[in-house]
């Protein structure tokens, strides 16, 4: 190996011919290209939204059902995701293997699953194979068979995958956080279910969920890429025109969770041998349609989104306590959670929880200076601009607007809405939505976390991993 050279070259400093000691200023900004959505609603109620984007010969699409995990019973957690994931595992005319082979031979990828508020089949296709690729999407959405052996196979795979997630401090902390914030309410369970809830799901549950929610008047098709809107409308009519809603009105969305806010808790899961502790500070946040959406985004950008946010400054950059610290609002149909998350060595878990609390309080007590606010807004605007540079990113942005019944024009007012947020808005918002007690979840090795946790949080519930019950709001086995 060549490592000995190091000693000799130490003294050979590069010769600099380097005049300028300050960065050259930017030139005038260039115009941004804004997407132009077109839309059409078919006679059966299916809404079709298209954004043409030329460049590479790629098209992304998402067939979205406006019902997701929120609608499943707590003891059948994972039902929406299992139903959606099974779509590609066999239809009346094609086996799972034929679907996989057919799609992949076209150079396409197909993926299905559920979020809190939607179930989806997403496609990424080559533009000259788009129509052919879409046939698979239509077939799996309208004609799935939900064969018993496919259900059993996928359930077993999901249970195995959960056994891995439950041994990972970060993912386990997220599962626990949902229970702590939402208890037994619709957002309290894990989206993918638990080993027990997955076992509870019967084929009938799946078929009923599909019958009730997978219907054209509860669906939206969003397409973006190298394809003309008129061509997409024709393809949609051909493939989905005969899709009928199975009787009656579409079920209304799940009513807002009316349960009173659960009191905050401090929960520590003792995971022996955890290589790092996961720390989450969390509380209910905002619904996507909340008029304060943009204010929340700007507030979070100051506090915890992006490399230079306050949490990462304090925890990573100043103190070296983590590889990354951040926070986010999970905007849903109802108020999804706000959470700040950090992974740190077990010994620092309590210190980090305190630092997060301190930074949240600073958001409420002190106004953000313009010199900090302006770059944080620029970060959001830049992220947005880059997200719509890809076909799948465009589909994602348009889908969210369609899912929550927001005007598609919002895609073009996103930037001005962010720019309109003031420092006063941020402080007022922080006081109203981030002030007061939040819950704290720590998953880590108690031997190393130590007594500090009891000193700082006398009411902390310390639950050994083998006593944890994610199916119960109490979180502890009876």
């Amino acid at each position, binding site marked *: 190996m*060549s*490592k000995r050279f190091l000693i000799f070259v130490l003294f050979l400093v590069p010769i600099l011919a380097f005049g300028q000691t300050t*960065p050259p200023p930017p030139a005038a900004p260039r115009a941004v290209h804004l997407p132009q959505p077109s839309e059409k609603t078919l006679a059966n109620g299916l809404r079709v939204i298209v954004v043409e984007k030329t460049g*590479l010969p790629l098209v992304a699409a998402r067939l979205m059902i406006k019902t997701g995990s929120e609608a499943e019973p707590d003891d059948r957690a994972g039902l929406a995701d299992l139903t959606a994931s099974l779509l590609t595992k066999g239809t009346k005319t094609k086996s799972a293997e034929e679907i996989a082979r057919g799609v992949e031979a076209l150079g396409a990828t197909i993926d299905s699953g559920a979020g809190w508020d939607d179930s989806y089949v997403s496609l990424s296709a080559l533009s000259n194979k788009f129509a052919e690729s879409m046939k698979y999407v239509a077939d799996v959405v309208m004609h799935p068979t939900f064969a018993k052996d496919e259900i059993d196979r996928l359930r077993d795979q999901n249970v195995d995958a959960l056994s891995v997630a439950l*041994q990972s*401090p970060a993912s386990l902390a997220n599962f626990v956080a949902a229970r702590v914030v939402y208890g037994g309410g619709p957002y309290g369970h894990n989206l993918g279910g638990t080993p027990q809830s997955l076992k509870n799901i019967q084929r009938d549950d799946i078929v009923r969920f599909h019958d009730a929610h997978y219907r054209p008047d509860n669906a939206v098709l969003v397409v973006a890429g190298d394809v003309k809107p008129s061509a997409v409308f024709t393809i949609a009519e051909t493939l989905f025109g005969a899709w009928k809603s199975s009787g009656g009105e579409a079920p209304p969305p799940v009513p807002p969770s009316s349960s009173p806010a659960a009191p905050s808790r401090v929960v520590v899961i003792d995971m022996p041998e955890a290589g790092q502790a996961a720390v989450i500070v969390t509380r209910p946040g905002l619904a996507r349609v909340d008029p304060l959406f943009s204010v929340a985004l700007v507030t979070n950008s100051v506090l915890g989104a992006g490399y230079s*946010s306050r949490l990462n400054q304090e925890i990573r950059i100043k103190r070296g306590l983590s590889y990354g610290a951040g926070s986010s609002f999970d905007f849903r149909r109802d108020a999804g959670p706000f959470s700040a998350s950090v992974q*740190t060595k077990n010994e620092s878990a309590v210190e980090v929880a305190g630092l997060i609390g301190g930074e949240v309080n600073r958001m409420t007590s002190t106004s953000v200076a313009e010199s900090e606010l302006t770059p944080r807004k620029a970060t959001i*605007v*830049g992220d947005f601009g880059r997200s719509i540079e890809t076909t799948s990113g465009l589909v994602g942005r348009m889908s969210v607007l369609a899912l929550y019944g927001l005007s598609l024009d919002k895609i073009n007012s996103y930037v001005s809405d962010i720019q309109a947020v003031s420092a006063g808005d941020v402080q007022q918002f922080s006081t109203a939505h981030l002030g007061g007690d939040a819950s704290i979840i720590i998953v880590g090795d108690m031997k190393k976390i130590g007594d500090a946790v009891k000193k700082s949080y006398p009411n902390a519930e310390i639950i050994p991993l083998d006593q944890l019950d994610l199916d119960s709001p109490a979180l502890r086995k009876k």
Partner: protein
Amino acid sequence: MIGAMRRRLPIFFLTLILANAALAAKLAVPPIPLKHRTLANGLQVYSVEDHSSPTVAIQVWYRVGSKNDPNGRSGFAHLFEHLMFKSTAHMKAEMMDRLTEDVGGFNNASTRDDATEYHEVVPSNYLETLLWAEGDRLATLNVNEENFKSEREVVKEEYRFRVLSPPYGRLFVAIDKDSFEVHPYKRPGIGNIAELDAATLSDVQAFHTTFYRPDNAVLVVVGDFEQSQLDGWVDKYLGGIGHPSSPIPRVTVTEPPRKASKHFEEHGPTVPLAAVASTWLIPEARHKDSPALSVAAAILGLGQSSRLYTSLVYKKKLAVEVEVDADLREDAGLFSSLVIVASGHSAKEGQKELDAELAKLVAKPIPAAELDKAKTQLIASILRGRETNDGKAGDIGNSFVVFHDANGVNSWIDRLQAVTSADVQRVVRKYVTGAKAAVIDYTADGGAK
């Protein structure tokens, strides 16, 4: 997920970038129109003008990676990468964030086996600013003791985050360690706590002087700029940086062929499902057999219609996950498979099935439709990676460093298309079924499962 993922070290997922470039015959995809210059100081410059979005991607790839970690300093190239975001003669620590994130851009970097790359995407009116900044940290990096120590703690947390915390983190370190006997690829790029603690500020200065020089770097710029303006700025901000007259140290060790198959037992404290990894040595990336090895890996493991997914995961339900990879590197690569075993089954069952599929691959010609499918999948995935300026620039930089040919982003396409069934069978016979495997069993401490 945690917000900041920057200054990262891809340990196992390098495939995404290494799968280089290809186009389907049926699909008209324009080649990337590369412009190339070599400056007098040795800096290579590749650029692609593209005005489809008002942004520009800037990348600097240095031909120094984890394989160049000094002795007793595993993880040093990666630690150094983090320090390139600290102070210079003209920039305060974290100034790169002021010039990127604060104006709506972003930056990041990664340390690979063969190279370290730094990248930014900014609104295109900031291109000149960023070229100045890249020149400044190449020429005048000036890290202080306080920043050094604090960032070293961050890297130790990154080690815990990647290796100690995830159930399969230790396996990813073990794969290289057990696969190479003499080549420094065997040392983990993420390092270890003791060797990170041993690093000093003078190591940092020496490393910068040795490897961070214009004749060891390639600049890639893709996006919204005017060529003549770019050329002028590059000359102004990067052309005047000199370099030492000493040669650049290179790794010259050759990994010898394996004399015998090897078996390893590796453990972690929390391993819910056993895993088994198998690796075989393959030649350097620029070898003529690389495209056929990539197609072989795709036939075996890419997508749910691949042979191993169909057999191990779908039909026999022995595994929850299968990955097959032709990991092409500058000096010597690995053909590898990774099986995460389903509960109630053993690694042995998975291994037996893997062997059966490999035997079948060399015994029977690959049907034309299946060969076409694998190529189309590879091509489409490369195309998706090129939707952004940053993705294109990454392909160019990687091709330059690992394949010694930036134009490989275009020629790789034809090479992939030319692969025949006989090619695939020949390379699998030569490097896999007819060669020696390293097999790594990964289970929980105490040998459970």
